[in-house]
């Protein structure tokens, strides 16, 4: 305590009274400690969750909660999304779920896979569900590796060891229900009340219904739903209710109705069309290349430099497609190369564009007009935009 006493003496000595100006007779008030912000119980419809893949430290990925109306304080908070994580947001449950992987010594040691449950008001973890087997699929984040089913009471987690399977998780009971083998198939598209479908390597779709224990009740294969060689579909669709709209590397649009126990490919695939200025041609390009609004329009990120291998290069325009009319209804130029697009469910919807340089731009979804930029202030590598339905 001898040294401590001396230190204290020194700390007290560092001071000499000053007079405050008459203009402000009262000092600024003291502020309470500790203070931690909370979020509104019901997030505004202008908020989105942006997945930051965080290339510089993939094991330290995160979700950014973003207020797209705020140009000066868009970042409302961060949620951990460690090591090739996936995430889900449930407004009805008031929770965010992250499917993550941890090692006991950061980069090495014992591996633990778990779903972490986060409260949407506090962004604090409320619990976790450990995923057995160390088999959770690690990929650049695709939304359809982790999905709800059974009215958001359950979640489905993709596994890849490289053996493919799906783990069925009861979010209410916080326990594992089952694991379903899925040889040769990938991605999870919730189907019907309790089940899912996946694309398979032969171009078919494999569909499973689950019983109330999470076991396979029935399964079915729908042959030739896509031609992977000639029209490979991006894995991430735009969802309109229970209809998923997929676009191919070459701009072909294909809908699937996932409302029933067996998925139904919608007849009449069509193309987003062509345009001048392509070198050699316009094609969809980016990581999340298609989004839907509440009115039933699709927004497709397009690259003018379409060629073999350009499908992840991002795009400089968004083409608005009406799938009912099977026609393009507008072209919106972007301010820079975008890699992901999303549309907010606001009364006046906005098109949110995550750019390759990390900047988030907000456009009017009806006109394409630029509204505001959030700058590169919420994520280093924004690759997915999740509006909160």
């Amino acid at each position, binding site marked *: *305590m001898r040294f*401590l*006493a001396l*230190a*204290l*003496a*020194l*700390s*007290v000595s*560092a*001071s*000499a*009274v*000053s*007079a*405050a*100006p008459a*203009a*402000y007779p009262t*000092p*600024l*008030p*003291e*502020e*309470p*400690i*500790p*203070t*931690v*912000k*909370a*979020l509104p119980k019901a997030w505004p419809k202008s908020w989105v969750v942006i997945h930051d893949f965080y290339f510089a430290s993939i094991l*330290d990925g*995160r979700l950014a*909660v973003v207020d797209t109306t*705020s*140009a*000066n*304080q*868009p*970042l*409302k*908070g*961060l*949620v*951990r999304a460690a090591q090739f994580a996936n995430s889900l947001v449930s407004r009805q449950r008031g929770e965010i779920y992250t499917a993550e992987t941890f090692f006991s010594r950061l980069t090495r040691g014992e591996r633990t896979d778990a779903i972490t449950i*986060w409260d949407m*008001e*506090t*962004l*604090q973890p409320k619990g976790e569900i450990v995923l057995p087997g160390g088999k959770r699929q690690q990929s650049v984040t695709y939304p359809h590796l982790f999905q709800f089913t059974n009215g958001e009471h359950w979640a489905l987690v993709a596994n890849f060891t490289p053996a493919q399977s799906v783990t069925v998780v009861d979010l209410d009971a916080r326990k594992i229900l089952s694991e379903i083998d899925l040889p040769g198939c990938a991605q999870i598209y919730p189907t019907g009340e309790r089940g899912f479908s996946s694309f398979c390597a032969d171009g078919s779709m494999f569909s499973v219904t689950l019983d109330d224990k999470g076991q396979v009740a029935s399964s079915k294969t729908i042959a030739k739903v896509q031609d992977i060689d000639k029209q490979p579909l991006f894995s991430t669709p735009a969802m309109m209710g229970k209809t998923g709209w997929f676009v191919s590397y070459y701009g072909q649009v294909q809908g699937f109705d996932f409302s029933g126990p067996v998925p139904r490919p919608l007849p009449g695939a069509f193309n987003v069309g062509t345009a001048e200025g392509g070198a050699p041609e316009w094609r969809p390009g980016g990581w999340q290349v298609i989004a839907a609004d509440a009115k039933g329009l699709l927004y497709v990120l397009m690259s003018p430099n379409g060629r073999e291998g350009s499908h992840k290069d991002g795009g400089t325009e968004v083409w608005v497609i009406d799938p009912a009319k099977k026609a393009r209804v507008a072209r919106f130029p972007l301010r820079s190369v975008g890699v992901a697009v999303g549309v907010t469910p606001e009364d006046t919807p906005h098109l949110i564009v995550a750019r390759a340089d990390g*900047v988030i731009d907000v456009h009017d979804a009806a006109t394409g007009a630029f509204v505001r*930029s*959030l*700058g590169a*202030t*919420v994520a*280093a590598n924004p690759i997915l935009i999740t509006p909160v339905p």
Partner: protein
Amino acid sequence: MAGFDKLTEKFARRIARGTSRRSMLAWLGAGMTGAATFPVLPVARAATHGGGPTHSPVTAGIDQDPGDRTSCDYWRYCAIDGFLCTCCGGSVSSCPPGTEMSPITWIGTCTNPADNRAYIISYNDCCGTSSCGQCLCNRNEGDRPQVRPQSNNDYNWCLGSQSSVYNCSTAVIVGVALDQPK
């Protein structure tokens, strides 16, 4: 050291209970070996940016507390070292959702250019979420070597918190200094 630990613990508990600033400052005056906040990126001030390329400032809305709280130049940041919570989902005096505010930290003295008063600023860190990554700011007016913890901003003060992982730093007014900063 047991005595010191007890003091620290007591201080933490007082803050947690929301004891009045006045009694806390009295206790501080009685002599806390304060301690510091957090990292330094040399020349971080230059690297700092606000909420966007051309964004409107985040202000207190009153003339007596002037300046943009997303800017490293804001008066309360005279000895801060880290990511500004104002850019991270918190504010100048509150932590972002999902984090925990460190119960104790180091105390700086900054002069408010509007009222010319020297305020005692507590640079509480927000903890339990990884590096915010926005608005890195390092200013060192009054910063002294680690041997004087109460005057050094290189310690990670995510220490009384459940996790020592650092997210961002606040700059909370905890009182008016009896004396001017040197």
